[in-house]
């Protein structure tokens, strides 16, 4: 008889060879989880090599899923359950598994040869080295082959269904129905009945194995999480970002133009938008990063919403054109899906070390609004906001995401697009100067300049990188004019602060003395750590910044309310430096640069130490 244990959250990691279908298994399990009403957060981890040699640590692909009966914010630091399809998967992931965690392993793959390939002198499944874990090792391959034997597949094809056998077993363990997956298989393999039937049989057999074997003493149940009513879907950061840009263009009444050059981890935005051309989206795969942003700026000049997406190395190449966009005062959204740098760095690993590049990485006084997304689903709102500011203020905007957000996924309450604010491009259609002249650098109350697109009669004008005379936009080397224009461009961007919500600390009791300030994808780890700290009867306040330039107008005042300000970042303290410089506040950097999200457990423990220190002062 199997017990049912109720848990509030579980982290499962599926790990196997690149070809073992771990991403598919993980995403199917995620869907069952969503349907069961749990909150969830996921993070895939692919090898950088496209097809690393089979059975090697370099070739291990994994998918981590965190699900819970409460509002969770991260895919979890450490898995409670590791599904390891081969010795390499065990080798690569065992270090992350919590002590006492569960390992489900396919013993068929633990051959002497495979063990030797990853440096195991003896079989860890039997040599006692995993005694501090619950190990469930069984012949997953053999059982799968037996389950699909009568369907007439060759051995190779039969073995390929073992990920679905594992999925069936996990569905049993976590008390999930398998119907959704069976429907998915029927749809996906409609044209290939043999494969459909084999995978279907594998799912059912895996589920039945859980029911009949005595290997597993416990099943687990996680109650649904309380979430606001609405219609939800699962969404990754890159997809949400693409949709947010589309929504921004649609609410501006502008076509969307994406110029991009393939780069990890931003390419999926190019892929996603290239598949939505029936929604007024033009995509241009350029010859290089410079052409990608150049064409986007050209499209904006011609009256579209120009966008370019890239990662750090591409940002460096685009900076001259972003400077031109500052001078031209045209809308442009530049998306930087950050990755670990410098240089090529670790392209598939995350970091948020491009903040200072985004804020300051241009020659001359070239102010650019900078916005950061906080979670995968938040990429939608952040992208919409970037488009709104770009179009409303006729300015380039840098939108920061990162590899952790790009590939991670979570539930998203689908917004009603009609309720999003409409965005006014404010096209100039008639002369605005004396004697019927057109002044392209005349400004509205927000200091946005007049935007006349080619084809508008009577408003012909020239723009360019040379300094503009205030109002007329003619070339000017006048010293006083240059000073005026530098200050006007700065004032325009600074003025956006009056158009964004004030900073608000989350301080449930109002008694916290320590404030944690974050930006970007540290949102999840900070929120999760704060939750832990508060459960441990300590007070902490958190504040997350969407707008990095300009900063919210009341930020300095909020920071000064606290005795101690801690700034966790996946860089060496870039926001901390900005806060110190801007507000003369003793903001302290909490810095981790491992290519991984900040560990919730580690940060929560460190935060408790900081809070305890502060309370004793």
């Amino acid at each position: 008889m199997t017990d049912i244990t109720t848990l509030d959250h579980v982290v499962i990691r599926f790990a196997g060879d690149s070809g073992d279908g771990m991403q598919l298994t993980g995403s199917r399990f995620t869907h069952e989880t969503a349907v069961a009403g749990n909150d969830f957060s996921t993070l895939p981890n692919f090898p950088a090599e496209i097809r690393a040699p089979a059975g090697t640590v370099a070739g291990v692909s994994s998918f981590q899923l965190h699900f819970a009966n409460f509002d969770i914010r991260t895919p979890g630091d450490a898995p409670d359950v590791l599904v390891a399809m081969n010795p390499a998967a065990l080798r690569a992931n065992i270090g992350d598994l919590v002590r006492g965690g569960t390992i489900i392993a396919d013993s068929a793959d633990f051959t002497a040869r495979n063990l030797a390939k990853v440096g195991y002198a003896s079989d860890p499944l039997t040599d006692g080295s995993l005694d501090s874990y619950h190990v469930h090792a069984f012949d997953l391959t053999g059982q799968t082959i037996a389950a699909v034997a009568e369907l007439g597949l060759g051995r190779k094809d039969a073995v390929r269904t073992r990920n679905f056998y594992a999925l069936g077993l996990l569905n049993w363990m976590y008390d999930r129905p398998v119907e959704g997956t069976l429907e998915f298989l029927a749809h996906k393999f409609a044209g290939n009945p043999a494969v459909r039937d084999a995978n279907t049989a594998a799912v059912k057999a895996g589920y039945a194995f859980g029911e009949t074997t005595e290997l597993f003493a416990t099943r687990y149940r996680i109650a649904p999480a309380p979430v606001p009513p609405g219609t939800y879907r699962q969404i990754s950061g890159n997809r949400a970002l693409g949709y947010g840009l589309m929504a921004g263009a649609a609410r501006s009444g502008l076509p969307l133009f994406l110029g991009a050059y393939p780069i990890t981890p931003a390419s999926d935005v190019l892929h996603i938008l290239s598949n939505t051309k029936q929604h007024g989206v033009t995509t241009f795969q350029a010859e290089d990063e410079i052409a990608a942003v150049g064409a986007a700026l050209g499209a904006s000049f011609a009256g579209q919403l120009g966008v370019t997406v890239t990662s750090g190395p591409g940002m460096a190449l685009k900076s001259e054109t972003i400077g031109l966009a500052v001078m031209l005062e045209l809308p442009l959204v530049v998306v930087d899906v950050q990755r670990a740098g410098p240089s090529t760095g670790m392209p598939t690993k995350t970091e948020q070390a491009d903040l200072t590049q985004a804020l300051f990485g241009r020659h001359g006084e070239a102010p650019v609004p900078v916005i950061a997304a906080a979670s995968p689903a938040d990429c939608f709102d952040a992208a919409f906001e970037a488009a709104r500011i770009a179009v409303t203020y006729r300015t380039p905007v840098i939108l920061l995401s990162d590899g952790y957000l790009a590939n991670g996924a979570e539930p998203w309450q689908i917004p009603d697009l009609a309720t999003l604010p409409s965005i006014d491009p404010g096209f100039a259609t008639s002369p605005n100067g004396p004697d019927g002249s057109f002044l392209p650098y005349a400004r509205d109350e927000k200091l946005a300049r007049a935007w006349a697109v080619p084809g508008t009669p009577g408003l012909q004008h020239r723009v360019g990188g040379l300094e503009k005379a205030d109002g007329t936009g003619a070339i000017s080397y006048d010293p006083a004019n240059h000073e005026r224009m530098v200050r006007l461009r700065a004032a325009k961007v600074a003025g956006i602060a009056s158009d964004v919500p004030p900073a608000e600390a989350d301080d449930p009791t109002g008694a916290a003395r320590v404030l944690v300030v974050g930006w970007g994808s540290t949102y999840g780890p900070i929120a999760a750590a704060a939750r832990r700290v508060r459960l441990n009867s300590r007070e902490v306040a958190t504040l997350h910044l969407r707008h990095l330039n300009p900063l919210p107008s009341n930020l300095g005042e909020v920071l000064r309310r606290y005795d101690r300000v801690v700034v966790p970042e996946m860089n060496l303290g870039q926001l901390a430096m900005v806060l110190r410089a801007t507000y003369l506040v003793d903001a302290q950097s909490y810095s981790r640069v491992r290519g991984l999200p900040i560990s919730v457990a580690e940060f929560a423990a460190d935060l408790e130490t900081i809070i305890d220190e502060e309370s004793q002062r």
Partner: protein
Amino acid sequence: MTTTPLAPGAGLTRVPLAVTPLTRKDFTSDQEVRWCPGCGDYAVLATFQGLMPQLGIKKENTVIVSGIGCSSRFPYYVDSYGMHSIHGRAPAIATGIAMAREDLAVWVVTGDGDALSIGGNHLIHALRRNVNITVMLFNNRIYGLTKGQYSPTSEQGKLTKSSPAGSVDSPFNPVSLALGAEASFVARTVDSHRAHLTEVLTAAISHRGAALVEIYQNCPIFNDGAFDGLKGPDSGLIPLRHGEPIRFGPDGGLGIVRGADGSLRPAAVDEVGLENVLVHDAHRDDPGLAFELSRLTDTGTILSAPIGIFRDVERPSYDDLARAQVSVAPDPARRLAELQGLITGPDTWTV
């Protein structure tokens, strides 16, 4: 519903026509022209302002994009829409403009340093894709704005401030480069030959797809007389006219023939017979012959060079192909509803 009348020449097919005839003055901006006295750019600007009204299109539907360099000041002097952009990047920016709008005549103004050195990559890709833009490449074989360094078209051994012992770079032949980049329209002309310049530029803007026109342009300050070898009746200027034998020299006494070794060479027409003089065919799909003709250009001091249209072939233009894949519901509410369907997707759950 009214139909916009179409301009002659497929390159301008989607560009609306001017309601009333325009004049040179309509294409002259209020900006004072500030090139050096004697600069070849004046002649090209004047020719351009003379030919634009003849095209019959609305001037507000003309866009000129330039890079950086002396010639790249060009847009400021023409009363159209214009952008003086970044060194080398004009073809990339113009690509975005041409893709965004089919109703614009898009010109790119560039120089030998701008197009062939810092911007070489964008130039070859714009030509390869066949974006509907017309590139005027002002080739004076020198960096003028930065005061006289050798350029990617300077002859080897060029004595300049940055090459006091003589430059060791081998130069590009822009026409050969463009042909190698699969350009569908490639031509060469000379700043001082106004009628030829007008004819070639008019043909170039009327071509649908990417057109590259190399303009030999004199820099009186840093490279004066670079093209003097092509002046006078005895010059080695070889005019190319589609369908005509390629003849040049005094009274057309010389012609281009294919020699016994298979290569093209000049020969006295009297000696070889007119029937053996190569007849120019700009519309050949194979660019090989055009490339061979481009190689008749001197690489050192230029004493001999073909001018005219080397190649003019039909090939779908990139921006037309790209636009054909894009659509959108014309009604904003409908567009939003369709987008709502997309973002909702097939796999949802309701709480």
